[in-house]
């Protein structure tokens, strides 16, 4: 039996979020009949994008009450549609919005929710998931005992992003919002968007600095390598606690969990907590003066040496090769 899978397509200021497209890919790979949920400004264009990336059809809603993601408005709408149309599964990316939406729906629809999943498979009429627990030190196979629809949020970058096919078409059905503004308690006052930085969770390449950089100025070579590679800059907790770099850059158990294709750790010893945040990286490079640093057990490539000599050399080499 084909699963009816709904996928929440997140947008910010009209731009589709990559993690939602990854969720579409996951839905398609389960062999489901996929419906995209496209709400907010430019909902129709969003729906089109979703169909090009694999959705078979879309439900679109555009309204002032849906301009910003507010869980009360979005959960009311998805919940109402779910009760009318009875999907088997609802997927979302495990972003702040996706997690909030599914958490609220789980209560409204009295069903189960599995958050932050890295693998999914269909077994009979149900889904089985694998998710990290204990900050990724262990993995858990999670399944549903009961409850329909099954709600699952997917960890960004854990599933491949599908290639768009501009020839794909599908029905886009316009739906009306379920809640009037007066009934929505949370009001958005303003939004201060962080300018132009590569977000750590979306980054394909991350260059991080740790205690070995020695001070705020020590991050200059780390930043330059990150910029040359078009990546994001990260940091260990030691560097953040020392006040050398803001917490927003912290990778690790009490910072961000990342899964880039390439993670270059400069002057980072590699504590258990730091590893918890970056161990899913595809390729790890460690540059550290201390040959015994635990990070070398995790890395694919290692350089035992002074990061202030080797990192600039890497930057120069890549600038040459990438024509920068």
């Amino acid at each position: 039996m084909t699963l009816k899978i709904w996928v929440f397509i997140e947008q910010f200021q009209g731009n589709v979020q990559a993690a939602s497209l990854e969720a579409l890919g996951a839905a398609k790979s389960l062999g489901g009949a996929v419906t995209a949920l496209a709400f907010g400004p430019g909902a129709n264009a969003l729906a089109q994008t979703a169909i090009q990336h694999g959705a078979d059809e879309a439900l679109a809603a555009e309204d002032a009450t849906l301009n910003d993601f507010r869980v009360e408005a979005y959960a009311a709408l998805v919940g109402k549609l779910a009760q009318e149309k009875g999907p088997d599964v609802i997927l979302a990316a495990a972003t702040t919005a996706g997690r909030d939406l599914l958490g609220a729906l789980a209560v409204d629809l009295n069903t189960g929710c599995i958050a932050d999943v890295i693998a999914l498979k269909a077994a009979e009429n149900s889904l089985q998931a694998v998710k990290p627990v204990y900050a990724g030190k262990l993995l858990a196979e999670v399944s549903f005992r009961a409850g329909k629809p099954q709600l699952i949020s997917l960890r960004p970058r854990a599933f491949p992003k599908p290639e768009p096919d501009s020839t794909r078409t599908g029905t886009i059905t316009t739906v009306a919002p379920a809640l009037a503004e007066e009934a929505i308690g949370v009001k958005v006052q303003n939004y201060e968007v962080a300018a132009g930085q590569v977000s750590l969770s979306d980054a394909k390449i991350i260059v991080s600095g740790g205690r070995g950089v020695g001070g705020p100025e020590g991050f200059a070579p780390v930043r330059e390598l990150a910029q040359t590679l078009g990546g994001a800059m990260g940091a260990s907790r030691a560097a953040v606690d020392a006040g050398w770099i803001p917490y927003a850059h912290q990778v690790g158990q009490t910072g961000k969990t990342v899964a880039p294709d390439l993670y270059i750790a400069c002057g980072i010893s590699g504590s258990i907590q730091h590893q918890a945040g970056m161990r899913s990286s595809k390729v790890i490079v460690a540059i550290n003066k201390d040959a015994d640093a635990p990070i070398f057990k995790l890395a694919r490539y290692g350089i035992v040496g002074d990061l202030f000599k080797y990192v600039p050399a890497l930057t120069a080499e890549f600038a040459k090769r990438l024509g920068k």
Partner: protein
Amino acid sequence: MNVVVCVKQTPDSAAKISVEGGAVTWDTGLVLNPWDEYAVEEAIRLKEKHGGKATALCLGAEGAKEALKTCIAMGCDEAVLIADAALNGSDALATARVLAAALKKLGEVDIVVFGKQAIDGDTGLVPMAVARRLGWAPLTYTMHIEADPAAKTIQATRLLEQGKQVVTAKLPAVVGTVKEINEPRYPSFMGIRKAGKANIPVWSLADVGVDAASVGAAGSAVQWPNVYPPPAREGAVEIIDGSPEEAAAKLAEKLLADKVI
């Protein structure tokens, strides 16, 4: 202002976690969930600023009283433990059901504060689920609060992927916090003494009015019978030597061949 902070007792973040005979084990003691320290600090600051009371609430085993004592030592006025054998195997939604019932029983609550997630289950679902069950304003990922108890309103700055969002809502509210919100204080000596002498009541499921059938393994929609260590990363590290220029050239070659750049 009546503030309640919901906390969990978990293994220490430095713990080596392993699986033995199907059960998860760790090599350190249990502590107050690290993310919850920020929530406890915020609850105490709200009480210090507006007057009133900060209560710590925990769903756990009898030993979780230690985590609650940490909350009192930091400055919470009271603590309550909900413990009941029927709770074993509860998923995040069942946990939220019980916490919501307990919050109703505590009565007249203005703000409930949560840490971002518990470092064992890592679901991060409970704050939103509690807010939804109670019908209170859900303010997740909050890095700054301004509350007005007289007007019964609250303004929260939320840290989202794209930047900072400022929202307002009416009280009562459920606030999920992130690390940027504050710097947790160390318990004072007097606080530790007070915590040592504190009487922490224990509520059962019957006390909070929740049916055993709606919690525990049988009452949970989600189950995780199989937990295992992640596959080890393959291969030993390849050390690249040579001068900075030589090593850079070798490494660049390999990374381009690996197609990660």
